[in-house]
């Protein structure tokens, strides 16, 4: 009971910190704004120029929060379903696969919803092929899944390279390169509106289905005799996590480290029970990506690709996690 109480406090604290970070992110930027100006925006009293800046910033912040929460929750899902702390949207090849789908759609000048669909289909296809390779490697070791993911990510990277090679350097190439390292620079209201519903539905799905994820980490025979169909449940979870990854890729490209590292951070705070760690992962992911994006858009005159920032934050955290590796996934 004491632990439960501690977790509740941690959750409330995380929500408060996220709100503070949102307000700070609204203030920080090339044009620094005061707390009063930010507050008056929400109370509808800001001057029109400030209003414009804040509207742009707020749109971007919303996108960052949804993507941060979505990618991290997808990471927690993959790690639970595969019972493997190294599984993440990037390592399994899903993110690169999705970016191949998105880049192909861009190459043919498709509208955003076709881009989304292509990203999702390629994400699922890559996930499927990763699982097929893992199956043929005939091993119970958790490392083969990761190797299979590396193989598929490598293949997808080569396809992406080919697409870049034939892309129009004036226009398309720039958009595709933008996808590779991730950035929220081009996010506007219309792109946010077209992707946000998928992100929100995916996040809500994983939030409400979080207890079921606990049981999916058990062995196959036990899950069946508990009365749960492991195949249907696992595939459903994988599908939703892939959908979240694809949606994130459509909005802002491939973002490294978040889906891998945040689930570990969250588990170290609230423990391995997904009833607590899933919402904590969402909150922590939103916070981490918000910090990364605020840095990406404010430390230099130009926007830095966000994967550079998440890499600098993620790598030391991951080393730390590997050094004190004691926790199994669930």
């Amino acid at each position, binding site marked *: 009971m004491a632990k439960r109480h501690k977790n509740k406090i941690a959750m409330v604290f995380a929500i408060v910190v996220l709100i503070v970070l949102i307000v700070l992110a609204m203030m920080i930027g090339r044009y620094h704004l005061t707390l009063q100006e930010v507050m008056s925006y929400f109370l509808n009293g800001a001057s029109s120029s400030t209003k414009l800046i804040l509207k742009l910033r707020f749109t971007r912040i919303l996108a960052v929060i949804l993507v941060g929460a979505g990618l991290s929750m997808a990471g927690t899902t993959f790690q639970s379903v595969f019972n493997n702390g190294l599984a993440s949207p990037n390592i399994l090849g899903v993110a690169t696969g999705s970016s191949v789908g998105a880049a192909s759609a861009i190459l043919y000048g498709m509208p955003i919803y076709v881009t989304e669909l292509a990203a999702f289909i390629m994400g699922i296809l890559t996930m499927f092929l990763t699982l097929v390779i893992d199956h043929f490697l005939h091993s119970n070791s958790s490392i083969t899944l990761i190797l299979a993911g590396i193989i598929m990510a490598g293949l997808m990277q080569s396809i992406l390279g080919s697409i870049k090679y034939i892309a129009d350097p004036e226009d398309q190439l720039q958009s595709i390169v933008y996808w590779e390292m991730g950035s929220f620079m081009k996010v506007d209201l219309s792109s946010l509106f077209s992707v946000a519903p998928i992100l929100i539905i995916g996040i809500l799905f994983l939030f409400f289905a979080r*207890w079921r994820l606990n049981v999916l980490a058990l062995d196959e025979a036990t899950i069946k005799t508990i*009365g749960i*169909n492991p195949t249907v449940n696992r595939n459903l979870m994988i599908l939703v996590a892939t959908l979240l990854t694809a949606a994130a890729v459509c909005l802002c490209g491939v973002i490294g480290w978040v889906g891998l590292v945040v689930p570990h951070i969250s588990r170290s705070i609230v423990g391995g029970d997904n009833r607590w760690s899933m919402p904590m992962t969402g909150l922590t992911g939103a916070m981490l990506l918000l910090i990364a994006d605020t840095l990406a858009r404010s430390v230099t005159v130009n926007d830095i690709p966000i994967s550079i920032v998440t890499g600098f934050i993620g790598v030391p955290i991951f080393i730390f996690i590997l050094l004190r590796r004691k926790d199994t996934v669930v």
Partner: protein
Amino acid sequence: MSEIATKKLSFAYDQKKIIDNVDLSISDGQILVILGPNGIGKSTLLSCLSGLHKSYSGSIQLGDQELRTIPKKVLSHHVALVSQGVNVKSSLKLTDYLLLGRSAFHSIFSQPNQNDQLQVDRVLTQIGLEDYRDISLQDMSGGQKQLAQIGRALVQEPQLLIMDEPTSALDYKNQILVLKLIKALSDNNISIIISTHDPNQAMMVGDLVGLLIDNQTYIQGSTEEILTEKYLSDLYKTPIVSTYNQQLHRNIFGTRMD
């Protein structure tokens, strides 16, 4: 539905017959101990009885229903399985691990409620691990993990509990702990089927004993009928002698080493 009976039960895997023509039965609150050499098909038999294989031939009657016609969710409220040698690698706290046994009572989107927690509390007392409720499973001993697995099965509120070699990975003290629990559960009218390699354990807890001699032959009877020197020597193809122990009030089995 705590009575289970098979008629001419056979199961083949990759066209190879693993078990053939098994007639087995158990009624309310009885303990059936299945003995047999390694690789003879004990685990397959128990998997069939747990509803894990639907492609068996012959029949398995649970109460008055054919096992394969019972939906998985419904079956999980009647029959629970503790698999063999599962090394539970879980950082869940014991109480959260036990809660997993309640999953079939809920839809994918619902969370465990007060009633589920009450069941978990009841089982924690039953398995004697009340003081370990907030301990993570990975910090527990082998014996405690095994008790936790049995607990997870009990939380399903089964009338039939099937355990595949529940004592095989345990030291002597923990073996006795698990066997005493099995006895206590059968006193609470739960029917239990276990497999083991040790005829002494069969003597200690069994009401019925089944011998899986080869994949063609299964014989079952009361403990007194089946646990004889002749049957056991034939089963393990090694001479086994028994002697009555006054203090234990039962036969003990062994083999001369000269």
